[in-house]
């Protein structure tokens, strides 16, 4: 099982800055607009994981190819996850924000794999 770093997933406030030439400076200073990306507190605190479940129909080589394509994993890592699915019934492919986990599950369903997102307990 491998978890990707979450640092890149945390929302960072976006501060709009406007640079004005001195000659055109307004007599009153406007408070800069701070745009924040709103997310559920829960989504930030509790990461989610993408789980792939065993399926006797899907071929091992096909599942490996899908893991390589969807997650960009090298072949050996993709095979490791594929074997984990086959032998243990499930494997955690990725963990992070819910939004991205949903996207991965959608992609995996597009390849007809049995995939779900789960909240990390």
């Amino acid at each position, binding site marked *: 099982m491998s978890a990707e770093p979450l640092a890149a997933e945390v929302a960072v406030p976006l501060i709009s800055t406007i640079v004005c030439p001195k000659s055109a400076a307004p007599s009153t200073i406007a408070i800069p607009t701070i745009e924040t990306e709103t997310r559920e507190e829960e989504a930030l605190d509790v990461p989610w994981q993408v789980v792939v479940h065993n399926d006797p*129909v899907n071929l091992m080589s096909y599942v490996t190819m899908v893991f390589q394509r969807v997650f960009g994993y090298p072949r050996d890592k993709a095979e490791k996850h594929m074997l984990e699915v086959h032998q243990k019934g499930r494997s955690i492919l990725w963990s992070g924000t819910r939004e991205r986990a949903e996207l991965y599950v*959608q992609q995996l*369903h597009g*390849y007809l794999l049995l995939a779900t997102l789960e909240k990390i307990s």
Partner: protein
Amino acid sequence: MEIRRRKNQIEISELDPFLAELLRQIPASANPEGAPAAEERIFNPPINGEETEFCAEWKVYVEPELRRLFQTAAQTVAGDLEQLNGNEKNLANRTLRIPCKHADAWLSALNQARLVIAAKNSFTETELSDHLHSPIGSRRDLSLFQVNFYGFLQEFILREMEC
């Protein structure tokens, strides 16, 4: 039957009428409509538990996209399979040429068909592991052979895509 890669095509030659017919059945076999077990397998829930609102949204927004994706793949395969149409008397020793750019569509359609057939017949893992099962016997035997034959084609396409 012979299968090989030729430049930018996968060529399946010396197709006897039986295997040609199995190939022609791929698009129809991939369709889960009318079989709840197959529908459930192809459009499985994205989350376990009680997130009914999320599952409902998934059905409204994601499922139609998936349905379109699967139908497009099946249509591409159906287009390639038109090579096998024509005079039934000439079905023996037919050749099917699949452009390599259609490989993904074939992988998807073959997978859809295998999953739908397996769900309709409730094949067990033991049955699915029996790759030498004879197609002669019952309709179930034929379906199992179909799943294995499509799996063999999938394996070949996957191997050729890696080269």
